[in-house]
């Protein structure tokens, strides 16, 4: 995603306190840490909205502390959601500061929108596969700066030339005399050293840590039950609540009969809100039993008749009219009618729930003048703001304790769960942990939007694309979540994967129409744009290859001459997958290529379609070029993970509405891929020294068309909507 920060408001400025500490447009400031030692304050690039215009103002958003006790502590604005950030980010510091990974400690950043702005998202949040992308340069620079200052301090003390000193494993050595000093001993002196301008960063060939498979620091606690997620918070005296929210979005409570619920042993209190009812109890068992005993009469409100078919119809209709032009190259309108062959197709994808394994939950202690919150969130400042607004207190009266996240996938970028918990907590004396049942979690998610796409293409006499047109309609999450980044009728998330394709297409035109569905909230979902666009684009490209009677890999390769990184991953994936080798009947291979999140990825899926129509993905080969790889094992793990997530979406994922109600409820009606259905996955990494690309989401979007293209290869059936309709794949009797 590319966010335009120029339009964002200025905030978070701090006037520099010492001339030494700051040069114009500096991103780094040094000083003495409270308690002694060296403190580097960093301002990550683009992060400080308006800082450039402000000239000499400086707003740090990450801090590196070297204490006289020898601790090196990084206060970091990213959240660990399982993507290995806690391990990869300190690697950047440790690499340049000449420390071992184990010598760097991490602290969660407290909520402060002004200080902890994620450079690419523009607000304090972890999402869109961008933790490493945002941190790559500045954290290495910080490490190198601190090292240079520590070396300078040692050289001064020894009265020698700094060039004769070396840093290694947390010490500075004077090579000619063998003298050495620990960083701990130097930290206080280093504060007086000038901040070096233009520190040189290591060449990739000199990396000791970056690119090596480091063990993740968060793993041990996750295998022995000691890891503490939001749902595990237990402030003293905490009560447990669960809730029923209006089954139709926007509906409200008409009446409640809570006599039976109140009679349940362990139930303490029933909290009635405008659009929800909560049962507060000693434990979740009693709360759930109380919830079942409630008799609630709902007023369904204006969306009582809403269905997903109606929403789909609206989207389809919208694609009949011009939308905002997201990208236009050449002249597709003229090239299309005169093309040798013409193709048209429409595609659509459903709403999807996030269904992270940890159901929505939030613990709140609301007092009249202070609110304390325990939660796992990807966007801590949003939680703080939502809590303050709901409780009617000032921002600084809200304390948020962030926790490990049992799966985010975009769901925990939203603060609706925190707001709801505060609403309930306002009626409860003491802390209350609001835990949603799985059914509530699925039926009151904020969903990956539905999209409808209308495509057309023209092929020249040789079968190559002469024109490509795509017009699609659906929700823009960015327009709600980060309005300044929604410009000219579109944004770079919703369109990513539909535009800026790796292919060289001479006449290319893409339009988007924003249509916000009524009666169903939408949100980021392990990316939004590519999760939909790559399916559509790569399926249609497959249709073009088929119409041209060409091999899908060869056809794509011919269009990738100008994008060698894409071409290389495609060739590699095809080779490793044994592309072209024969497979049994009703088995097939499908391919996809993707340029998104600043990474290039190709996948080949091998599927088997049973006579009854059941699809089994047997093997996936993925080749990825994500620039410099910080932690290769994490890269592989994230791709494996993303692929399973994408297969779940391709084969099973859909949220449907009937009479305004979500029809799916738990893992029986909202199925997730299981062990016996999981394919073998091979990941091949193309190493180079480009800036790191994002990965948390790339595997998910790229696998979907690889699977559907493989189904086409196996059965001759082209699937233009998701999830896969296995009934349509049944072999005729």
């Amino acid at each position, binding site marked *: 995603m590319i966010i335009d920060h120029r339009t964002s408001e200025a905030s978070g400025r701090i006037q520099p306190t010492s001339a030494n500490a700051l040069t114009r447009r500096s991103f780094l400031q040094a000083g003495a840490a409270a308690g002694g030692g060296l403190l580097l304050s960093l301002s990550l690039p683009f992060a400080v909205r308006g800082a450039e215009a402000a000239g000499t103002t400086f707003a740090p958003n990450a801090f590196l502390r070297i204490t006289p006790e020898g601790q090196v502590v990084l206060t970091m604005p990213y959240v660990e959601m*399982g993507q290995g950030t806690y391990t990869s980010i300190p690697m950047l510091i440790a690499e340049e500061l000449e420390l071992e990974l184990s010598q760097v400690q991490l602290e969660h950043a407290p909520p402060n929108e002004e200080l902890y702005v994620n450079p690419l998202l523009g607000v304090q949040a972890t999402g869109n596969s961008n933790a490493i992308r945002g941190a790559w340069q500045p954290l290495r620079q910080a490490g190198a700066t601190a090292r240079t200052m520590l070396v300078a301090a040692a050289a001064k003390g020894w009265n020698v030339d700094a060039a004769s000193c070396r840093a290694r494993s947390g010490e500075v050595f004077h090579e000619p005399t063998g003298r050495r000093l620990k960083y701990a001993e130097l930290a206080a002196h280093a504060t007086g050293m000038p901040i070096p301008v233009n520190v040189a960063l290591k060449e990739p060939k000199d990396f000791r840590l970056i690119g090596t498979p480091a*063990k*993740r620091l*968060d*793993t*041990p606690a*996750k*295998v*022995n*039950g*000691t*890891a*503490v*997620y939001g*749902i595990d918070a*237990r402030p003293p005296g905490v009560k*447990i609540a669960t809730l029923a929210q209006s089954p139709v979005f926007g509906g409200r409570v008409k009446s409640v009969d809570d006599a039976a619920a109140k009679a*349940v*042993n*362990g139930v303490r209190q029933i909290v009635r809100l405008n659009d929800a009812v909560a049962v507060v109890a*000693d*434990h*979740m*068992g*009693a709360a*759930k*039993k109380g919830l079942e005993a409630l008799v609630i009469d709902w007023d369904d409100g204006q969306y009582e008749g809403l269905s997903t078919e109606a929403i789909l119809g609206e989207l389809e209709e919208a694609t009949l009219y011009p939308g905002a032009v997201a990208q236009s190259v050449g002249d597709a309108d003229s090239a299309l009618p005169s093309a040798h062959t013409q193709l048209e197709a429409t595609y659509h994808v459903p709403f999807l729930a996030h*269904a*992270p*394994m*940890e*159901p929505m939950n939030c613990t709140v202690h609301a007092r009249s003048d202070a609110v304390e919150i325990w939660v796992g969130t990807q966007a801590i400042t949003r939680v703080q703001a939502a809590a303050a607004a709901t409780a009617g207190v000032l921002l600084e009266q809200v304390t948020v304790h962030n926790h*490990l996240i*049992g*799966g*985010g*996938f975009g769901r925990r970028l939203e603060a609706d769960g925190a707001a709801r918990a505060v609403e309930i907590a306002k009626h409860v004396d003491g802390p209350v942990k609001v*835990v949603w049942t*799985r059914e509530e979690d699925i039926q009151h998610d904020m969903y990956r939007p539905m999209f409808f796409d209308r495509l057309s293409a023209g092929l020249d006499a040789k079968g190559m694309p002469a024109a490509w047109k795509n017009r699609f309609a659906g929700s823009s999450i960015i327009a709600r979540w980060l309005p300044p980044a929604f410009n000219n009728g579109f944004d770079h998330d919703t369109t990513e994967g539909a535009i800026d394709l790796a292919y060289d297409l001479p006449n290319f035109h893409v339009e988007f129409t924003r249509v916000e569905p009524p009666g169903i909230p939408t949100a980021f979902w392990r990316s939004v744009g590519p999760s939909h666009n790559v399916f559509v684009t790569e399926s249609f490209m497959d249709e073009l290859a088929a119409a041209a009677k060409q091999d899908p890999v060869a056809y794509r390769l011919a269009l990738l001459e100008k994008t060698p990184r894409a071409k290389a991953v495609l060739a590699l994936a095809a080779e490793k997958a044994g592309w072209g080798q024969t497979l049994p009947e009703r088995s097939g291979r499908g391919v996809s290529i993707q340029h998104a999140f600043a990474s290039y990825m190709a996948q080949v899926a091998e599927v088997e379609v049973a006579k009854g129509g059941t699809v089994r993905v047997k093997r996936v080969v993925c080749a990825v070029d994500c620039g410099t790889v910080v932690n290769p*094992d994490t890269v592989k*793990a*994230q791709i*494996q*993970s*993303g*692929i*399973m*997530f994408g297969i*779940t979406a391709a084969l099973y994922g859909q949220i449907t509405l009937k009479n305004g109600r979500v029809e799916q409820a*738990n*893992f*029986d009606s909202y199925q*997730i*891929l*299981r*062990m*016996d259905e*999981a394919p*073998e*996955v091979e990941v091949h990494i193309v190493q180079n020294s480009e800036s790191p690309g994002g990965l948390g989401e790339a595997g998910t979007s790229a696998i979907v068309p690889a699977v559907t293209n493989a189904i086409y290869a196996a059965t001759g059936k082209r699937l233009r909507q998701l999830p896969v309709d296995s009934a349509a794949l049944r072999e005729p009797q």
Partner: protein
Amino acid sequence: MSATISVNGALHTVDVDGDTPLLWVLRDVLGMTGTKFGCGAALCGACTVHLDGEPVRSCITPIDSVGVSEIMTIEAIGATEAGAKIQKAWLDVEVPQCGYCQSGQIMSASALIASIPHPTDGDIDDAMSGNICRCGTYVRIREAIKQAAAA
């Protein structure tokens, strides 16, 4: 009503209704939060514990059905031979992503290799398909079980 249960070798007396699922007794009454809630309907395996060595879904196990059976949870599984092997393999292979499902995965996997020391792929499918991992760590779970079995 009150019930006395044995968890990881220690006796606890709790005052809850007899139909209260064991999961909530562990998490909310005894404060043992290593066992996780995922679905409440025996569909995901996040809440898996051992009852006399057998894996059960604690979210649908009423407390009054436990009787004198010995309950073992993720907090103590490392003290068993199979549990220790599985935990070590989980670390070596770096199985967890978000980690939330992993208590349940480890309890299912420990029970598997305790009863079938050298499981086939089919055995692994049978034992592990009740445990959902939304982060999709299945490839590594399979690898780690095989590694633990070989240890």
